[in-house]
């Protein structure tokens, strides 16, 4: 009975998606996604490099116990503050899907992933007065963007002996950004205007990763990834190239007690490679970013670790695309979550809630990100 109620309540946050759009995703390529499953999100991302349901480390695919499909979504409840005012917003996204499993008779695991690479969903409203024909006319402008880049990945992991797993993946980065600028006038003799454009992206990336276990209680993971250059088309015309970052990551996992496992990871991305490209297009450039996460998972029943675990974590990091040149935004997140498994562990639902603070100069926002993940093992 309690399981049923939990299921219904969890289903109440359906559009859950974690590509938290933000006012800090207005510039450049948008707000970077995190390619994490809900389980990993609930730990602040600290388990991401060890998590086969996330798309951070191809070597982690070796941890899939069987063929598994994962789908997640995030509902974003955000309060925005900037010099123009404050507003409470909400948004739904589906940032992470993955399918993977072990090959029979071979120490090999394969996986497909679909994750949000950057999100550029926003709608910005400004009010002003412009002098027209000698009279000040109040106008309302709205710039709207929908879309971003998605990361389609195919990867594999190979287990070497008991303690090593290495993996590699190939990534196709693609997506479309539909942008609209509209204006209305207080004087009805001026006709409203609306202009649209479609900006599409295409690029590829490769990644190598490893996981090394030192006994049953301690493990280390590392990744290196290159995403090359993305081609940018505007309304089907090739207009630009943008350097995408190299990503380096290192993670640690330590089972402190049978019921408590802690983890930490750090990620570094060389977004500054895109700086000159973005400045050349009239943007505000880009800065390198880092993310540090720490978290843990407490399992009340050590013999059944998937039964209502308590996950928690904290992360701190920087964002790549400043709103104002030279003023890089930072974010802090506190998260908590849990999950249930049922049908003989063939299905499960995970829930994560994260409170995020982001700030840069006079711009700030805080958000609750409610994430729900569905796991199926057919």
């Amino acid at each position, binding site marked *: 009975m309690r399981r*049923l109620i939990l299921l219904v309540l969890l289903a*109440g946050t359906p559009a859950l998606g974690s590509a938290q759009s933000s006012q800090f995703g207005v510039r450049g390529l948008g707000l970077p996604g995190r390619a994490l499953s809900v389980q990993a999100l609930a730990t602040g991302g600290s388990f991401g490099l060890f998590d086969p349901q996330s798309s951070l480390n191809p070597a982690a695919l070796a941890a899939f116990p069987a063929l598994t499909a994962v789908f997640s979504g995030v509902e974003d409840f955000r309060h925005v503050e900037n010099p*123009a005012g404050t507003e409470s917003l909400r948004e739904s996204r589906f940032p992470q899907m993955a399918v993977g499993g072990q090959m029979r008779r071979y120490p090999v695991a394969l996986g497909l992933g679909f994750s949000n690479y950057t999100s550029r969903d926003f709608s910005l409203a400004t009010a002003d007065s412009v002098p*027209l024909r000698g009279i000040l006319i109040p106008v309302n402008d709205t710039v709207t963007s929908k879309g971003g880049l998605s990361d389609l990945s195919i990867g594999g992991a190979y287990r070497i002996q008991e303690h090593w797993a290495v993996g590699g993946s190939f990534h196709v980065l693609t997506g479309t950004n539909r942008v609209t600028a509209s204006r209305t006038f207080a004087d009805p003799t001026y006709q409203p205007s609306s202009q649209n454009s479609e900006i599409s992206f295409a690029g590829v990336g490769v990644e190598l990763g490893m996981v090394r276990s030192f006994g049953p209680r301690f493990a280390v993971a590392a990744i290196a990834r290159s995403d090359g250059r993305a081609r940018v088309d505007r309304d089907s015309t090739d207009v630009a190239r943008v350097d995408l970052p190299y990503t380096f990551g290192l993670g640690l996992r330590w089972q402190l007690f049978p019921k408590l496992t802690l983890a930490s990871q750090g990620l570094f991305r060389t977004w500054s490679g895109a700086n000159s490209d973005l400045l050349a297009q009239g943007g505000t450039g880009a800065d390198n970013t880092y993310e540090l996460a720490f978290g843990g998972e407490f399992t009340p029943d050590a013999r059944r670790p998937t039964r209502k675990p308590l996950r928690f974590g904290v992360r701190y990091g920087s964002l790549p695309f400043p709103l104002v040149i030279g003023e890089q935004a930072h974010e802090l997140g506190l998260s908590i979550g849990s999950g249930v498994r049922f049908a003989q562990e063939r299905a499960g639902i995970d829930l994560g809630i994260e409170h995020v603070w982001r700030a840069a100069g006079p711009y700030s926002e805080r958000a609750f990100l409610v994430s729900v993940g569905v796991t199926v093992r057919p």
Partner: protein
Amino acid sequence: MRRALVGLAAVVGSAAVISACQEKLTSPAECPGLCPGGPQTLFETVLSPLAGLDSSFHTYVAPGQGAALLVSSGLPVSEDRAVYRFISRQDSIAVRDTARAYTVDSVLITLNIVARDTLVGGLKVVLFHLPSGVDSTATFESVDPQLVDANLIDTIAVPDSVHSGQIQTILRGADVARVAIPPGTGGQLAVGLRMTAAAPTGIRVGSLAGGNGATFVSYLTVDVPDTGAVRNQFLSRATEFNTFVTQNRPLPDPTVLTVGGDSSSRSILRFELPPQLKDSATIVRATLELIPAHPLLGLPGDPAVMEAHAVLADLGAKSPLTADPQFIVTDTLPEGGTDTLRLEVTRVVRLWQASTDRPPAIFLLLAKASEAATFTRPAFGSTNPASPVGPPRILITYQLPFPFEIP
């Protein structure tokens, strides 16, 4: 208890589903931090007609073929007389297959006033008997001399409270002779109208084209021994022909753009869109400005409506005009006005952008109900060097393509 919990969970879950699917994305923003691409910039430009290619054309609707006839007395814009000719009235009536003579006992003549200057009182409409051969060749000089007492039918005093509608006169007894139709004239009665009032003014009266022309009803006694309906009959005759004649019709002035008047003039303005507008600009406002060459002439209190039409094909005077109301702009012409007339032609100019098949031209004319049916005769400055005032122009406010920030 278990069912209640399940129900509660279902309700809470459904509510959560519904609320969670709603998005609210719009947030306040300020520039430059939250203005990707920068602010939207507006530009203004002036479009002048192609020199020498703005022209007036005349006589689209002949006098009398419009929705009203003009009658005036001392009105500065023009001096007019109206003429009606009724359908033929036969000189006998068939009763039981036998043509019977009749005598006219009384006559009712009904007119329709379409408009008048309601501030001028003492209006009287005077009817005169004209020869039945009056037709479209009639001129003021041929008609007016016949509007004399010898031909007087009657004078209809119009109460000041009557602003429009029917007025009539009934002739009985010896007065019937004033509308007697002499033998050999085809049985047709023609009447001429003039008017007087406490001050110089004019009226517009109904016409055949307007569906409210004059009517002429004869009440008869048929030469039969019977009584009742067979003996006492009436014959009603509608207008067969009508026109109005104008004293000293002004010749069209080629240095100005004329619209309306008794010659029902129309004018065409031709433009050329500059490349920055033709390609990708978003036009948010386009205003056609017309400068009156002189105070707008007309009947006080009876403004006409002018229309600016998009042109489907530029064939000069015979250019087909759009009937799509989206591309027709109207405005009222106040009598005596000297201010620049402004017509919002944004959609018309946008049409020029959107379709290369549509010539960038505008046709100016009076509304259909006003052509050759109103005293209003505006004239506007043209590109002609001899024009007394400046030429028309279109003020255009536009946006260039928004420079969406390309990542």
